[in-house]
């Protein structure tokens, strides 16, 4: 919701009193801060928050994991690659409710732990990404050269 705000310099205070969202005020040069240094944190996304947890009722060889802020994009790709693991008896994912940013993944193994299968799945996906990246760049460069000739 766009809120009406004030041009006066004391607007920030007034807005807080009213409980309206603090919004950035018009761009007087003084308010546009030129930080000469970047914020210390290099990684742009906040990694401090734990986004994966094991759901209750899980055992070593049969576990359900809950991923926060993940969706079908990773869910289905991870399901596929974990199903490719011969130690895995069963793997499936679901999004329990569309309005919650949660994705659940169930892994049952014949051999080894479910956590190991999940880790292996994530590693295998990374290998796959590496190769796809190389292959795509290589063929693209070849294609561009071919077009130029």
């Amino acid at each position, binding site marked *: 919701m766009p809120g009406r705000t004030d041009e006066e310099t004391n607007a920030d205070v007034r807005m807080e009193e009213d409980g309206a969202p603090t919004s950035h005020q018009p761009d007087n040069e003084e308010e546009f801060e030129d930080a000469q240094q970047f914020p210390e944190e290099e990684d742009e996304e906040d990694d401090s928050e734990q986004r994966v947890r094991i759901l209750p009722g899980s055992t070593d060889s049969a576990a359900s994991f809950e991923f926060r802020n993940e969706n079908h994009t990773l869910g289905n790709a991870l399901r596929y690659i974990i199903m490719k693991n011969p130690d895995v008896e069963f793997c499936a994912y679901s999004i329990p409710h569309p309005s919650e940013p949660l994705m659940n993944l169930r892994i049952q193994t014949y051999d080894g732990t479910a956590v190991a299968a999940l880790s292996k799945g994530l590693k295998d996906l990374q290998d796959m*990404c590496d190769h796809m990246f190389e292959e795509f760049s290589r063929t693209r460069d070849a294609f561009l050269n071919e077009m130029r000739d």
Partner: protein
Amino acid sequence: MAPFVKPSEAELERRRTIQINDETVTNISSTDFPGHYPGEDNSWSFETFKNTFRVEHHYLTPAESSFSLIGADAAIANALRRILISEIPTLAIETVYVYNNTSVIQDEVLCHRLGLIPFTGSKKGIREFLRWRRKAEDGTPGPVYDYNTVQLRLQVECTRNPSAAPDEREPTKLYHHAHVYARDIEFVPAGRQADLFQAPEDIIRPVNPDILVAKLRPGQVIDLQMHMHKGVGADHAKFSPVATASYRLLPTITITRPILGRDADKFARCFPRGVIALERVSAAEANTPGSGYEGHEGEKKAVVADPMKDTVSRECLRHPEFEGKVKLGRRRDHFIFSIESTGQWDSDELLLEAIKTMKKKCERLEKQVINMVR
């Protein structure tokens, strides 16, 4: 343990073809998982993937590209498509400060329109220098700096054109600034942005300068400032780097029994141009018993020329004369991608960026899993 069984080529072909029948589709799910076929090894192998995964490029310009990913599963292709649409960051107008707007277009609508204009500028500046605008502790948008915000200004006033012909009816000639275009938006560099976005090809500007933003009449004014931030398509479509990103499976057409003469013409017309070609039955074919060509030497026959162009309309399945002579299908592991960029990224960079994003996701989650166990 007994050595693994290798399925025959014909069996593999059957497995990777989705059958398209007149009313149904069959053999739709992937079955290349360990334990699905007894005695076969379908486990994940990086070496096998390296040998089977291929990329073919069909068309490539900065704005648009088309290519095939062959040998990947739908789960992977779909993940890439979804990342292209919703997870690759771009810069877009996020906040608008309206000082004056006396045009007939309402403030809200005008701001919404401004948000949807795609912008471009120095790739280095946008991708490396500019960062996310962080949230403050209480979840409200954080402070703006030169490294997370780009300022723009739009100041136009419509005036009469005194030199217009007296009988002129065309508003664009009768008035100055009767139309407000995206090109009227000015970049206001702050701090280090002045160096990074200095060169004419680096300056932050609309991808298409001719986007009509509003129409004015004499005396009407639009005066506003804008702040651009980085965001992802999952948050709002204006941040999506692609106009469209989609894939389709490669169609397959198999002519199982000869289609000859006038039927061949009709058959070709069941498909888009270029899919089916007409050839003459050769003497050798006509002399081969059991080929179906006996006694038809020199007649026209339908052959499949380019199934990629097919739209799989299934028109050929509606005609009784082709019954039992043709099989339609799609190749399960052949994804024909088509990507249209909005201009901030080049279309060929986009898939690479999507792959990088997917890898980064996995890396992060790997750490999270280690954390979880600890």
